[in-house]
């Protein structure tokens, strides 16, 4: 192998080594967030630091170790499309399923009678069809009167 090719190979090894050392340092900082003094900082700072470092590590590995930086744009487009779809789906799923708990003391706890009424309404489709705990005609069904947090809590108690 020529001396020029040797030098190119060695400079690539040096470059990869530097990137690996930096990634190791980022990992150490991420773990240090859980210990003093960083743990005493605000939640927003800690979350921003963790997410930011993860993004930097992700981009460094994809761009430099997977060579996307030097490769044709087609590969970036292929992976990027999948990644954007993935992240978008995740954000949408979390947004759709997020439930905000009410203020403490404003929601009475679920009783066993409430849970049995939910099971009855679900079994008989809507609440008025029948069953021992069915809602009388003319009234809103018990399920309709629950807010999203109560419904989520009741669903967990009923199905888990």
């Amino acid at each position, binding site marked *: 192998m020529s001396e020029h090719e040797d030098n190119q190979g060695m400079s*690539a090894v040096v470059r990869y*080594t530097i990137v690996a050392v930096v990634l*190791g340092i980022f*990992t150490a900082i991420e773990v240090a*967030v859980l210990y003093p003094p960083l743990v005493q900082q605000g*939640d927003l700072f800690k979350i921003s630091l963790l997410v930011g470092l993860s993004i930097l*590590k992700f981009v460094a590995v994809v761009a430099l170790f997977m060579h996307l930086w030097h490769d*044709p744009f087609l590969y970036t487009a292929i992976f990027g499309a999948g*990644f954007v779809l993935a992240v978008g789906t995740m954000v949408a799923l979390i947004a759709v399923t997020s439930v905000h708990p009410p203020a403490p003391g404003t929601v009475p706890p679920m009783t066993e009678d409430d849970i049995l009424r939910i099971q009855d309404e679900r079994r008989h489709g809507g609440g008025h069809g029948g069953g021992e705990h069915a809602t009388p005609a003319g009234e809103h069904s018990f399920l309709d009167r629950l807010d999203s947090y109560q419904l989520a809590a009741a669903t967990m108690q009923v199905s888990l």
Partner: protein
Amino acid sequence: MSSHAHPIENPHEIGCTGYPHRKIIMWLFLASDCMFFMSLISTYLVYRNRSTAHPLPEEIFDIPLTSTSSFVLLMSSYLMVLTLAAIERGDLFKFRLWCAGTAFFGSIFLGFQIYEFSHFVNAGLTLSSNIFGSTFFVLTGTHGCHVAIGVLWLVALFVYSFVPNGVTPARALDVEIAGLYWHFVDIVWIVIFTAVYLMEYII
């Protein structure tokens, strides 16, 4: 052609795009695997803090252990890129050394995972103990399976390098494709380590 292109042994390797078929297919696979892992991570995050039964994450996570395994996987990614650089230079000895090192580090990571899983099971966390157990084991277990497949792939490459003309600079694409898979496994763990382990102690 990119600055990272290397000679292709088989001219039929190149398609109408002007790029190697197998590399395009691997990137397509990685894009789909990205969506697959994001769905598992989303499921974990959606059901986070919804478990009513113990044990809960903050009771059993061992951050120093998981940090060590994360570092090991990160270093295996470094060794993988050295493996590719070695075969591109035609240095077969270094290729075998770094390839074996990458597989070894991957095995160490799997060992950490097995130890962690057995510790969690002993603590009462199983697939069916609570929603945290279900989502956690499916997510990290799937990732562990990917790592195991990667280790087998690297061992196969290492063994194949002893076959005459098995692994050569003209066939560096074989090693590059294995490297893409291995690096992807690493970046998925980067996301899992932050979203599953570290975030538990922040929010």
